[in-house]
């Protein structure tokens, strides 16, 4: 999660309440540039990734969330939620979107982090 100094408040978009996302699950935020999957893990951490598996484009939001990973529903690639990187030996990544929770509300930056071609 980003700190306020790096991103100004007006760059954050409120997308809903934390309790709207099931634990060990995900919801989709639909944008003009494509879907973003917002995950909530068993320990109530929130992560956001481009909803597109680096392998064959499967919707990661539909996968089973376990630990801080999600298993893509199409071919079972495991993606690390904190980095967006595929678990070795698979290679690839889904772009990471900064996300933060404030008073039970989830805020998302629609600008993905640098470094991953799968934006």
């Amino acid at each position, binding site marked *: 999660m980003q700190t306020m100094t790096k991103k100004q408040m007006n760059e954050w978009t409120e997308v809903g309440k934390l309790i709207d*996302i099931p634990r060990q*699950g995900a919801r989709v*935020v639909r944008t003009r540039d494509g879907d973003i999957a917002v995950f909530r893990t068993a320990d109530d951490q929130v992560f956001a990734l481009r909803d597109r598996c680096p392998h064959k484009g499967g919707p990661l939001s539909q996968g*089973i969330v376990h630990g801080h990973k999600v298993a893509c529903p*199409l*071919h079972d690639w495991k993606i690390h939620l904190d980095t967006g990187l595929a678990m070795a030996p698979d290679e690839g990544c889904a772009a990471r979107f900064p996300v933060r929770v404030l008073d039970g509300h989830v805020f998302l930056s629609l600008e993905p982090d640098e470094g991953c071609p799968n934006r």
Partner: protein
Amino acid sequence: MKEKLVLVGNGMAGIRTLEELLKLAPEKYEITVFGAEPYPNYNRILLSPVLTGEKRFEEIILNDDTWYAGHDITLHKGKKVVEIDRRQRRVLAEGGTTASYDRLLLATGSNPFLLPVPGKDLPGVVAFRDLWDVEVMLTAARQCRHAVVIGGGLLGLEAANGLMKQGMKVTVVHLPDLLMERQLDAASARMLKKSLEERGLQFVLNGATKEIIGKKSVQGVVLEDGRELTADLVVMAVGIRPNIELAKKAGLYCERGVLVSDTMQSYDPRIYAVGECVQHRGQTYGLVAPLFEQAKVCANHLAHYGIARYEGSVISTKLKVTGIDLFSAGDFTGDDSTEEIVLQDVGRGMYKKVVLKDNRIRGAVMYGDTLDGTWYFQMMRDGTDVSNLRDKLLFGQAHLGDAGHGDIKSRVASMPDTAEICGCNGVCKGTIVKAITDKKLFTLEEVRAHTKASSSCGSCTGLVENLLAATLGGDYSTAPKKKPLCPCTEHTHDDIRAVIRDQKLKSIRAVMEKMEWKTPDGCNKCRPALNFYLLVAWPGEYVDDNQSRFINERVHANIQKDGTYSVVPRIWGGETTPAELRALAEIAEKYSVPTVHITGGQRIDFLGVPKETLPAMWGDLSKAGFVSGHAYGKAIRTVKTCVGKTWCRFGTQDSTTMGIDLEKMTWGSWTPHKFKLAVSGCPRNCAEATIKDFGVVCVDSGYELHVGGNGGVKVRATDFLCAVKAPEEVMEYCAAFLQAYREEAHYLERTAPWVERVGLAYVKQRVVEDGVGRRALAERFRYSQKFAQIDPWAERANGAERHEFVPLKMVG
């Protein structure tokens, strides 16, 4: 500050332990390695091919110097450790090098045993143990002519074969009257001898060595019976002894080897030991597979994970002499309580023997055709009941309808590198072989992780195993004896089910806590399994955990490659009406369904439905009287029928009504894997009931019941369960069979492998012979159905689980 780990022994077991440790805890230790040999870690198994000239030394190096440097490991090559100071926690090597440790790992391997005969120390007498020995042999082969190998076991024969390939005239002197007597029975040992003699080796069996003679170097071997054999080189290959000199000197408790516990610890808890120097539960091991299992456990404890246990290994042996195929595992001699099945074809040079006890494989010896060795070995370790396979067992897996792979071995060998091995993931032979050699893969699981080969449908598993065996020299490791449910736990499916039942555990969390799961909330393999097990154990009580279900079962539709879904309404028994078809047509048009398809189970499939549209479409289907067809789940799928005696001139019973009744009774039930049924109105079997999980074939006198069939990857025809007279009996037997399968099969195990694993006799006993048991099973099934037969589509059309079907937010 990092803790200090010192490894004594730069061989395969020790380095493998470090590799496993670095995977788990790369930063934990400052590591120092001492190796007596002046080389980096190499693959000792492949010394035989180096001797024959099939491989060069560089090709068998496993970890070169850059690997040690890359992991900040200090390597002392060519420095033999001579003392362990346990009080100061320090080791001392020849030449004065010392290193202190917080934990010490001993992997000193073994020493060749030298016969205590006169002349054993003459130049020209070597063992066959390390690269130095191989170099001596290769030099001798260039300059001399006669070699004698003492010992006709695995190692001795490989040495003899290698020297013969290098142009020497080789005689093997062996004390017993059979070659490889610890791995072979009389018949196979004789076949081996014959074929080695044809290649030019000479044998002296019952040959006791009295003395090795020679002035400056070896000139001959004298036997007890007075015979004298000319020899310029003598290779002693009469056995190995765990190298425990150092451990003993340090006061560690040793018998034949260094005694270790299930955590690979010696009597000094700071000192661990792995590999050939170890004695565990009375056993010492000299093959690579058990050593690697030990390495994994040891690394787990060195990393302070503290959960793994080594419980011993079952081993198998293959001889690495090119062109001779030999496999041996377990107890191949048998006793009064065992039976043998033997197939021998001297003309083709083929011999197979499987030793059975209570219809379970105890051991096997194979000569000439060893393709099915891994298959027998797997069944031996799993304790599979082979009563149904007995008549086909020795003909091999290929004769069981294994997707037509035919003679795998010769196919694999003759395949070009571009040949596709894994059709699901498009992996060709060259890619797999390259991954095995470049990435040093030793197990099927590793090949799957790195190449994806055989990781999907699994039908090419045999091909991949053969590639592994061929590439590694036939000595690779397969799965451990007891297969845990998934890497999150050490426990097996059966253990977990028993604990759920006996300890009355009623949530996934409770199971994970009670059974000490290694991960905080499991993974996508164990959570669906646990969810299912709990659902079966506590019908009406356990609340299904949606987040532990695969997407298809979570949203009650089948995800497609583009992220849309398919919708298959239930059409009872495959019989429909114009009104129903009209309603389906209108719904398909209303939602602009891109593709409408008739499925193999006599249903109609709407493909390409976006997720958000599902609830509305289901609402319309519900209004027209349709419920979910569960085409997406590990659940009752379809009951396929023919029209039966209502129309067909051959029909004997009303198969359609029977099918509809079966479907009404069973729909909605969750099962370990998908479950398909069919009812055919006569033995012509138009509904293909004999490749279904439960099939009914109507006959004039009643109904024949068949179980455990499937189409798909591995076609298997059903086994005949029994014949019954009345329709009510069909219902009861079906319910009982289903419930036994639900309660006892492993999650994701279809009825075909389940029936093969437990044996048809067992299923018959539970469902046919034990009438009271059958009625109880059927009753439990019917009870659980009370809570299962709620249409998930109607619920969701009415707003249940709404969050699944709408975006959290639309932006922009």
